[in-house]
């Protein structure tokens, strides 16, 4: 069952990604103002949604670990944070590639852009912390605390930067966008969502294997040998 879900999400994700991006590249109409650059949207916007969903999963898992203390929560928190960081990186990269021809700059201090940048650093710190704590139980508690603090920061950063300055275009609603574009965007968004779930499941599997090895008694003790006297 678990295997079927993992393979299923991967296959569905890849098929949807091929469809959404293929249609977005070759079938959807060209944007009047931005030209072909706009096609970047089909990759850029879904990465933002997916990264946020992944961080949300990680946050919920952090809270879950502190309440229930079950290893699975910790594994999910780590996996989702790591996958979220990957999508966050893709988001920043595609945003910069898109921003240069459209705005004339790679980086601006737009609220969403800045929040994405700060989140990238926050979760980079979260993952860095995990590497430096050897005791698995301590690592899980400390990481859960840091994960909760990091996620709580996102809305505050967003609003503080929005007050500070703003330039990003206002989100388009499906009503103002060509229906063919909306279809490509939706397909790509679901594709990335499925791929994200797939990656998280895989990462949990890897994490579980690592944890089992960490928690296993040392080989000498397992063999019933007490070690040198």
């Amino acid at each position, binding site marked *: 069952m678990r295997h079927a879900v993992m393979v299923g999400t991967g296959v569905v994700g890849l098929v949807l990604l091929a469809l959404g991006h293929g249609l977005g590249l070759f079938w959807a109409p060209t944007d009047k103002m931005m030209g072909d650059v706009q096609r970047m949207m089909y990759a850029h916007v879904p990465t933002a949604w997916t990264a946020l969903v992944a961080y949300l999963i990680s946050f919920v898992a952090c809270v879950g670990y502190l309440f229930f203390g079950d290893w699975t929560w910790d594994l999910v928190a780590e996996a989702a944070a790591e996958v979220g960081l990957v999508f966050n990186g893709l988001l920043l990269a595609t945003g910069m590639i898109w921003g240069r021809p459209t705005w004339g700059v790679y980086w601006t201090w737009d609220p969403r852009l800045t929040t994405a940048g700060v989140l990238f650093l926050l979760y*980079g710190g979260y993952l860095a*912390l995990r590497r430096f704590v050897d005791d698995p139980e301590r690592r899980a508690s400390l990481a859960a605390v*840091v994960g909760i*603090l990091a996620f709580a920061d996102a809305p505050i950063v967003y609003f503080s*930067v929005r007050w500070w300055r703003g330039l990003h275009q206002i989100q388009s609603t499906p009503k103002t966008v060509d229906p063919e574009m909306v279809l490509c965007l939706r397909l790509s968004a679901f594709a990335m969502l499925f791929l994200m779930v797939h990656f998280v499941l895989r990462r949990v599997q890897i994490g579980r294997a690592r944890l089992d090895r960490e928690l296993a008694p040392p080989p000498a003790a397992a063999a019933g040998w007490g070690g040198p006297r």
Partner: protein
Amino acid sequence: MTAAERVRQAVTIARKDVLLEWRGRARINAIAFFGVTTLLMFSFAIGPDARTATLYAGAFLWLGLLLSSVLALAESFRVEAENDAVEGLRLLPVDALAMFLGKAVVNAALLFVLALLLLPLAVVLYGAKLDAGVGPIAGVFALGAAGVAAPGTLYAAVTSRIQAREVLLPLLLFPLVVPVLLAAVKATGLLMLGDPMGQVGSWTQLLVGFDVVYWILGSLLFARVIEE
């Protein structure tokens, strides 16, 4: 545990920390001198242009403060991590919430004093103007110091028993306090350079909001950080 008992414990922890800081004045001096050095380095980095310096006095002041804060915060938990003193406190037993409040209040006070010490230097080096009065600026200092101290105390505890703490503490803390830096620099700058649009109030509110969120989160989560 009753609330009164908790307060008493928090006050005792705070007094212990203040006493430690006072007895080891070399440490607080070193941190203050580090802050002064940072401000000097900013002057050297931007060159002798007086107008730029005045324009960014608030920004430099807060950056200097933030850089020094890492040293002060790390120090406040180094003394507890050494010889497992924190374990002793836990066994007494000292309530985790009282421990957090006691230490965070002292850290906030330390940063506040540091900010007040750096303010005259900003006037001398950068030509910062204090026309709005020292009172409102000190108010912004207090709110900003509290904003750095709450997550800072928590993260200092998180990193206190990790080898790479010197790297991890700023790595975790700096991105988190971006809103504090934004709001505090804006508010300080507006107070120094004049505030024709009356914006200081909204930046102060942002600082208050951040403080409320992170003092609550710190109080809730600290127990999980110091548990063995």
